[in-house]
């Protein structure tokens, strides 16, 4: 079974600073997709960023970027210029067969003003 591991249960960062959330995954597939989802207290699952495994270039979305290391099966999320609204649970997920998402355990991000 495919697995996704987030080893940081909690992280905190000062407002306007940069923070990196870690994720590792295990898959036997050659083509797959990786995602970071944000879950604020409202519980809504919000897609932050996605990465196609066949693309070497790291994905970026405004202040959010990833460091995708395919050989190491690592997929970290960098948040630049952290804002109070970034406080949430962040989940790393992989897209596997039958388009099923496998989620990590989550990292709770706190932004200190």
């Amino acid at each position, binding site marked *: *079974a495919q697995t*996704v591991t*987030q080893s940081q249960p909690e992280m905190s960062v000062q407002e306007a600073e940069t923070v990196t959330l870690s994720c590792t995954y295990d898959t036997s597939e050659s083509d797959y*997709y990786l*995602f970071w989802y944000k879950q604020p207290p*409202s*519980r*809504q*699952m919000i*897609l932050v960023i*996605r990465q196609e495994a066949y693309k070497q270039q790291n994905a970026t979305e405004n202040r959010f970027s990833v460091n995708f290391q395919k050989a190491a099966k690592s997929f970290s999320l960098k948040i630049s210029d952290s804002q109070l609204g970034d406080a949430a649970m962040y*989940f790393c*997920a992989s*897209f596997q067969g*039958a*388009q*099923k*998402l*496998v*989620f*990590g*355990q*989550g990292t709770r991000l706190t932004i200190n003003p």
Partner: protein
Amino acid sequence: NAGVTQTPKFRILKIGQSMTLQCTQDMNHNYMYWYRQDPGMGLKLIYYSVGAGITDKGEVPNGYNVSRSTTEDFPLRLELAAPSQTSVYFCATYPGGVTKNIQYFGAGTRLSVL
């Protein structure tokens, strides 16, 4: 745009009761999913469907049943509710084909079994 609609938003059940969590989508997506999220944890797949009339088990199917008679609806049935089923339940859809491989989530149903 309604997207993925889940009802109810909250529900409290007594042990042994049964209920159906409703999920409806208006995007004509082929794939639909049910996930559960236990406190402080990630989402785990309960059941999924790749089209009307086709369903399959996910990682944690015990205690649940599903049906998919139409493209729009994918209800999740809990029989003989147990405290271990206290969780937040998410329904999601995916269009299939050549897309950005993005799943679309409903707002969730918080269920407590007491």
